[in-house]
């Protein structure tokens, strides 16, 4: 609503022949000169206002005094959709698409520079999804949790609270990864399967085993599979927040840990200050021995 209010004020000021300039607009609304200029541009190009700068009056005026502001209002939902469209069109190099990107950007009140920094590949997207996209993005930028209704792949509807971390794309679909407080684990959600969504006024939970590098556009191999489980005994008690994998149970210094790749798990174990022993499975123990053997051989003079 903010910019609409400003535009009404500028329109009034011009009609009252107070000749507003960038400085007076920015001071009146405590906004940047750049934003004030954008408002003028918005009036000129998007609303068709015959607005011109008068050097004589040192401010803006209408060249056609019969002009009236169109009586329309862009809702926040529509703005989210326009914002998304502007990003989508900005990815197409053709001039007409770039013009549309700029137009959608202005209509949405979004800063062009911010738009160009958002990395989203082009593809068809519904307005409903655009709103969800915007909500997830807001929750991430505000470091807040999300409440949402979600239909899982089995068609089961559930209300979930999620600490969202990252939006990414795979093929023709958008997803986001987050810590699901219902399932108490990391989960990937399809944006188009989410129903209503709202930012929850609670700080996000920081999941110790969330790895952003695993969720990259078109490069994400979902962990559809069941994880491996291992039992590891440490010499000292471990803070679970420092364990980069999901701990499913513990008994004293013995931890049952879930993992998807021995490479990742063993790599992490080598960074832990505590000594450790793999109790099971046998194959993982063997992998560890082989790895150590390899490192030992290399340090004994074998080529890298």
């Amino acid at each position, binding site marked *: 609503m903010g910019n609409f209010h400003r535009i009404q004020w500028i329109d009034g000021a011009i009609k009252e022949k107070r000749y507003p300039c960038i400085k007076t607009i920015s001071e009146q609304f405590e906004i940047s000169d750049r934003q004030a200029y954008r408002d003028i541009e918005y009036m000129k190009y998007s609303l068709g206002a015959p607005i011109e700068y008068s050097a004589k009056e040192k401010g803006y005026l209408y060249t056609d005094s019969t002009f009236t502001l169109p009586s329309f209002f862009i809702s926040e939902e529509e703005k989210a959709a326009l914002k998304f469209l502007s990003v989508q069109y900005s990815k197409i190099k053709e001039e007409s698409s770039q013009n549309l990107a700029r137009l959608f950007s202005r209509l949405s009140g979004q800063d062009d520079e911010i738009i160009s920094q958002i990395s989203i590949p082009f593809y068809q997207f519904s307005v409903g999804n655009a709103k969800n996209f915007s909500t997830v993005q807001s929750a991430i930028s505000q470091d807040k949790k999300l409440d949402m209704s979600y239909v899982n*792949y*089995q068609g089961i509807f559930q209300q979930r609270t999620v600490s969202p971390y990252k939006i990414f794309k795979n093929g023709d679909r958008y997803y986001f990864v987050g810590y699901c407080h219902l399932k108490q684990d990391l989960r990937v959600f399809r944006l188009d399967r989410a129903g209503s969504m709202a930012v929850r006024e609670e700080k996000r939970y920081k999941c110790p085993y969330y790895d952003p590098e695993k969720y990259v556009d078109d490069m994400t*191999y979902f962990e559809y*599979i*069941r994880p491996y489980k291992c039992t590891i005994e440490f010499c000292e008690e471990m803070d679970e927040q420092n364990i980069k994998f999901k701990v499913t149970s513990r008994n004293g210094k013995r931890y049952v840990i879930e993992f998807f790749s021995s*490479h990742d798990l063993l790599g992490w174990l080598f960074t832990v200050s505590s000594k450790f022993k793999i109790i099971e499975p046998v*194959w993982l123990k063997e992998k560890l021995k082989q790895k150590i053997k390899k490192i030992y051989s290399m340090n004994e003079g074998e080529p890298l």
Partner: protein
Amino acid sequence: MSSKVLEGVKRVGLWNSFMGSVKAVLEYTNMKNIEDCMLMGSTGMAFRFVMKNNCDASGPTVYDWASEHFTMLDRIGIFSEITLLFREQGMNTFKLAQVSAMEKIKKAIDNDIPVIIWAPSSVMEFGIISGYDDEQRVFFVRDVGEDEPDPLLYDNLGISMIPYLYVHVLESCIDVAQEKMFRSSLVYGIKEWNKKFHVSSSYTCGNAAYQSTIDALSSERFNDFGFCYCMAVYAQSKELLAEYIKELSIRSKEIKIPSKTVEYCMDISDGFREISMRTPFLGPKKVHKVDCKKELALYLKQLREKEEYVMKSLEKAIGSAN
């Protein structure tokens, strides 16, 4: 509770992971001694050139696995048995299919035959099961990587990003007359080259795949990662195809292949190698950004003309041999 590991099963050593797996099984079992070019050529696999309209990485593996693989191996005298099932969401009997497949795999391993499956590791390629352990509930596997990958949990058999339960056991082998094998592979190759429709409208095959790739190079939907991967796969296919045609021209008593045709095959092979070197595949998590697309499109156009010549020449050679 039992377990068995077939020691010494080699990794999948070809870009075409299905044929790489076949090769590793044949070598381990001593079922058939066959060079890479003869395996890829005489089965017909080297002729396959399938691309998606955006050049994504799916092209080389999109075809009817069960019937194509069976026929390709039959062409060189290998009898094999295939289980193929797509795991639809909400499927009721998948667990039963998994148990049945597990039994089949264990039986083959007990008979000292490594088993070919789809995606035994996180790499979406064909690979091999070389052992099992009931106590740990894992299969030991080999894939395209140098190192032995993590084992596959029994529970994860047939579950992956592309959820096919594909189990292929090479059962036995007979000799096939060389001329019959040559002819059959060429007939297949020419058919693939001229194919107008492949699986779905977004995939094209042979001659049409060239055009689809050329079009994709100037389109927004172009997939850099997929293009580099496909070029790596097909560069090796074309190289082995060139070697196969050369061998065929020497060995066949019935099919006379002109030297210019062999020469053009070599040119196509060099061309794909060149493209692949300029657009290197950097592994599953890195993407090389493809530049000089106009130049590549032009180059592919030239290669297509040469391949068109080769195919016409091969068709003529088979016709004259009748």
